[in-house]
């Protein structure tokens, strides 16, 4: 099958993170003449206008760019919030690691271990149900104590909290730099 210029341009716009302008397209598609390129872009843009689709090619900042359509916004927002929910920030991960390896542990202990206040990330971990409150410590102020949950194990594909790699094992894995392979 012959490669069609229109398809080439479509793939270029697809991978480009910024609006792709005519000048750049011409610089890349050196096998084709300027008028061929302009015609192909025209054709491509029209095909997206006439073809009712979920995505569109828009013109912005002097270039072409794929974008979703505004009428699908609410579903996309749902997807993004779903994905954000399942993602852990670096701070949350660090806090989670602290809980996992030092449980049962209090907020003050976590913060001391991390060197920063961990209450925000701890709250997000509680909301994600990766961490739970399991009582109070018998010490002044009777602070709450935290542990990881079953959902935490599922999240990391572990059967048992004892299956977590030990600190020595992790160090060993990370310390094999010298070995040639």
């Amino acid at each position, binding site marked *: 099958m012959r490669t069609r210029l229109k398809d080439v341009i479509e793939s270029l716009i697809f991978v480009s993170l910024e609006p792709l302008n005519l000048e750049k397209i011409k610089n890349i598609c050196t096998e084709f003449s300027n008028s061929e390129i302009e015609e192909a872009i025209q054709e491509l843009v029209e095909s997206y206008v006439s073809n009712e689709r979920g995505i569109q090619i828009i013109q912005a900042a002097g270039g072409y760019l794929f*974008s979703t359509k505004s009428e699908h916004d609410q579903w996309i927002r749902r997807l993004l919030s779903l994905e954000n929910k399942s993602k852990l920030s670096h701070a949350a991960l660090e806090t989670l690691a602290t809980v996992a390896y030092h449980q049962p542990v209090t907020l003050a202990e976590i913060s001391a271990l991390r060197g920063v206040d961990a209450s925000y990330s701890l709250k*997000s971990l509680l909301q994600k149900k990766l961490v739970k409150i399991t009582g109070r410590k018998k010490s002044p102020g009777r602070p709450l104590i935290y542990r990881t949950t079953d959902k935490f194990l599922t999240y990391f594909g572990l059967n048992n909290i004892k299956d977590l790699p030990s600190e020595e094992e992790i160090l060993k894995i990370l310390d094999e730099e010298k070995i*040639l392979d």
Partner: protein
Amino acid sequence: MEEARDYQVNLEVFQGPLDLLLFLIRKKKIDIHDIPIATITREYLAYLNQKAKINLEREGEFLLIAALLIYIKSQMLLPRESELEGEDDPRKILVDRLLDFQKIKAASTLLREKEGQQKRLWKRSAPPPLPIKQEVELVEVSVFELAEAFLSLMKRKEQENIRLIHGKEYSLEEKMKELIERLKENGYLDFREYFNSQESLEEALTSFFCLLELIKARVVIAVQESLFHPIKVWPTQGVPS
């Protein structure tokens, strides 16, 4: 002589002893299920003797297989009453390993092909822009909430500073300038972060009063992206981001 050159050519590709063994077997057109142990051991050791060409890090691994070959050879030499076959064959342990390894190598070849196909397919590395500007839904935080958040921070600072001697004084004007500078620099201020960076309770208090003044004058606005999110302070206008 010619053989030695052969090895040299292929030297870099021997990832390990099993690689070398398979190479020798293929080169000699040997049936993997009926390996002439004496021949292959001799060939293998000849290779190992070319010391300079063995990666020292890997030497132990090559020697381990050499030991196995020699062991099998000795077992083969033991007088037996009947023909060796099946499970009794001392070569079986080696043959099984070679067969397994051969499969892994073949699978690697197939995966390499798939990798090549996939490398030609490009995916987006960042999400496309949304048609509607995706503004974060910012919730304006009341001064009360701000104070509440500050109180809890202050408590912490107090605990930390309990034994510190409060020597330094902070002027409101200086703090105000510093705050505006920070806003100009970063475009916004993370409330918690900022107060955490204050050295003492007094300094934190001074900063807090400055911030209250700025909010009252509507020079800055305190917002939260949503409940439980960090409180951020943004300039309302005039402060270039």
